[in-house]
């Protein structure tokens, strides 16, 4: 018995000391058995390897006060103004989400970059005026201590709009509105235009203008039908190229997704309902492809070239010092290219843009196109003006989109307006109540006549 106990102890001791030190027939069986037992236990228990403290620093936070969908100029502008206008420092947590951090298809980076105050709608003029002021004082707004001052490379050469006989009356009334709002615009006759810019062919030009926000859970419509108000509680942010996603709990969602705002709105359930009702009113913003061409013309107009928009809709501006120019033309409704991709149609330049340019500026009869690209307009099919403000039913989705080609030039002012709406509940500086979503349901078009 005593010998049996010793044998048992010796055996157990060997097992305890380290199975690898003993070579023999008995111990490999034992290791295999142990690993088999481990595998059986793991397959029986739920879950994978137990890893409680993994790194989530690459994921967005779980809670955020405001989530801005879209990281282009409008989204970033709203984010900036929200942080700048918040009362206690650090009060609001803002999360900006964008699906492409290279901004390869974003309208912001592909824009021609013209800024004008020659609009027909007073709100648009005010937005542009403030945005110009913002750009002029950009170092005061966006300066960071210890960094060199910002240089936006702005060309203050002015914007020249030409009008033919039919458009002359509209242009005059527009200029009156612009002057009333405080924009500095001057009207020129064809002779004055020829004197100032001898390289223009003033044939066909009659006039030119040169210049520099609900809370109740039930709502009843007028017919007595009840409507339910919805709230967005969470935004699921999916990470790039992986299956990870982070549900971000938020109080407000701001839709600044540009050309894709319509799709984002549909994700929130806007437009899902019988047509003709408020639930069924979709956000009428869709992507429209526009081409921009970059050409060289050694005899072209010199340093004083303003941003010029012809009577036909073709426009161009000077780029750099080497007689290079950027420009394009908006196609008519019938010629709208397919917005599925960003391929450039060079025939469009040959057929539709070059003839007008060559007619207006004879020097452009001999030019050489160096490159071209395409970008999207976040085109508002309803009335080509932006949408700003909350949705009447989905109470915590705010829009800042649909500017149809003048988003970049109005971004600082629109960002400030949306931030004021979020923080104060109403517009403080520029009143954009005519640009709210409800106009789509009520059918009130807010038309802008000067769309390039």
């Amino acid at each position, binding site marked *: 018995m005593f010998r049996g106990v010793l044998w048992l102890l010796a055996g157990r001791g060997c097992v305890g000391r380290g199975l690898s030190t003993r070579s023999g027939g008995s111990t490999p069986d034992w290791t295999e058995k142990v690993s088999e037992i481990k595998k059986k236990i793991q397959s029986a228990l739920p879950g994978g390897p137990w890893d409680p403290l993994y790194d989530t620093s690459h994921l967005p936070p779980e809670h955020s006060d405001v989530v801005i969908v879209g990281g282009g100029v409008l989204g970033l502008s709203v*984010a*900036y103004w929200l*942080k*700048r*206008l*918040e*009362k206690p*420092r*650090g009060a609001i947590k803002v999360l900006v989400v964008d699906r492409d951090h290279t901004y390869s298809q974003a309208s912001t980076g592909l824009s021609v970059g013209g800024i004008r105050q020659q609009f027909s709608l007073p709100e648009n003029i005010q937005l542009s005026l403030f945005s110009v*002021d*913002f750009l*002029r*004082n950009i*170092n*005061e*707004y966006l*300066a*960071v*201590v*210890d*960094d*060199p*001052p910002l*240089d936006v*490379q*702005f*060309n*203050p*050469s*002015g914007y020249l709009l030409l009008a033919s006989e039919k458009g002359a009356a509209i242009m005059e009334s527009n200029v009156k509105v612009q002057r009333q709002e405080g924009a500095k615009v001057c009207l020129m006759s064809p002779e004055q235009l020829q004197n100032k810019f001898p390289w223009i062919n003033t044939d066909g030009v009659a006039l030119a203008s040169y210049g*520099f926000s609900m809370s109740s859970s039930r709502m009843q419509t007028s017919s007595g039908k009840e409507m339910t108000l919805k709230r967005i509680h969470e935004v699921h942010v999916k990470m790039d190229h992986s299956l990870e996603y982070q549900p971000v709990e938020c109080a407000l969602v701001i839709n600044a997704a540009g050309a894709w705002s319509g799709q984002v709105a549909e994700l929130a359930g806007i437009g899902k309902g019988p047509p003709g009702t408020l639930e069924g009113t979709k956000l009428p913003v869709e992507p429209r492809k526009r081409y921009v061409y970059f050409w060289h013309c050694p005899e072209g107009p*010199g*340093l*004083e*070239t303003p941003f010029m928009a012809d009577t036909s809709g073709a426009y161009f501006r*000077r780029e750099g*010092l*080497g007689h290079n120019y950027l420009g394009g033309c908006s196609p008519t409704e019938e010629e709208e290219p397919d917005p599925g991709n960003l391929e450039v149609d060079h025939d469009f330049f040959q057929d539709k843009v070059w003839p007008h340019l060559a007619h207006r500026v004879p020097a452009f009869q001999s030019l050489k196109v160096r490159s071209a690209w395409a970008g999207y307009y976040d085109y508002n099919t309803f009335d080509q003006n932006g949408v700003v403000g909350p949705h009447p039913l989905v109470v915590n989705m705010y829009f800042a989109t649909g500017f149809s080609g003048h988003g970049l030039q109005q971004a600082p002012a629109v960002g400030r307006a949306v931030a004021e709406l979020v923080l104060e509940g109403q517009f403080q*500086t520029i009143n954009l109540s005519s640009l709210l979503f409800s106009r789509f349901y009520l059918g009130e078009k807010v038309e802008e006549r000067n769309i390039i």
Partner: protein
Amino acid sequence: RRLSRLSLSSLPPQSLHLVAPIWNLGTSGIRGLSSAVTPEGNQRKGRMLLQFLTDRFYDVEALRGYLFQKQVSKVHKENRSSTGIKKRYGPYIAGAYFVLKQGGAVKFQGKEWIRSTEHGYSPLQLLSFQAVPIEAVDASDCAINYEGLDNLLALKELQSLLLQRCPHVDDWCLSRLHQLASSLQELSLAGCPRISERGLACLHHLQNLRRLDISDLPAVSNPGLTQILVEEMLPRCEVLGAEWARGLKLGPEQQSRDTASPIPA
């Protein structure tokens, strides 16, 4: 996080001012800005220490932001347009007072230059010149900016404007000068650190300009080419500026030839 650095709610939202590009705390004043471009050894060490502290402590960051905003509002205060004086004494006195307050010099028609640093200058002496138009302003080294230019643009008989080495005169200011197109004959922008060729493009409205000095503009990317383009833009104006050949690379056979002979544009 970077966006929240300058959110000071004490500043009224309506105040839009041009910034003083002074990034090291007070070690070089507005007048000495050109020397700040190439810092010496001690200045650099001091600046690196400040940068180190700013990156790590919110207090230092907030303090520097606050001091920076104070400098900005100081420039704005100096450029306030004195509408009271303008109403009482007319635009010429107001303009002269503004320029002399900033440290420049003013020349009334038919009189001598009045400089603010001169002995015996007193503002009251200006009152005698109430109806006399100003024909020349020398605002060199002054902290004049976009808003301050209001005072000068009211001087409709101004013939000569010298804005040499002004640290806050930039492209936007040049776009306003078209209001002086009917009278301005001489303009000097030498040494202004913020003027680039985009601002010079706005000068084409000044058809009466006969002398333009655009030498030594550090922000102009291609001085020689810019000079040629400006000369083309203003055919009746004599443009003094960089040597046009400075930007060109000479081929081996041309290096022996004299580079000062002009080639037609």
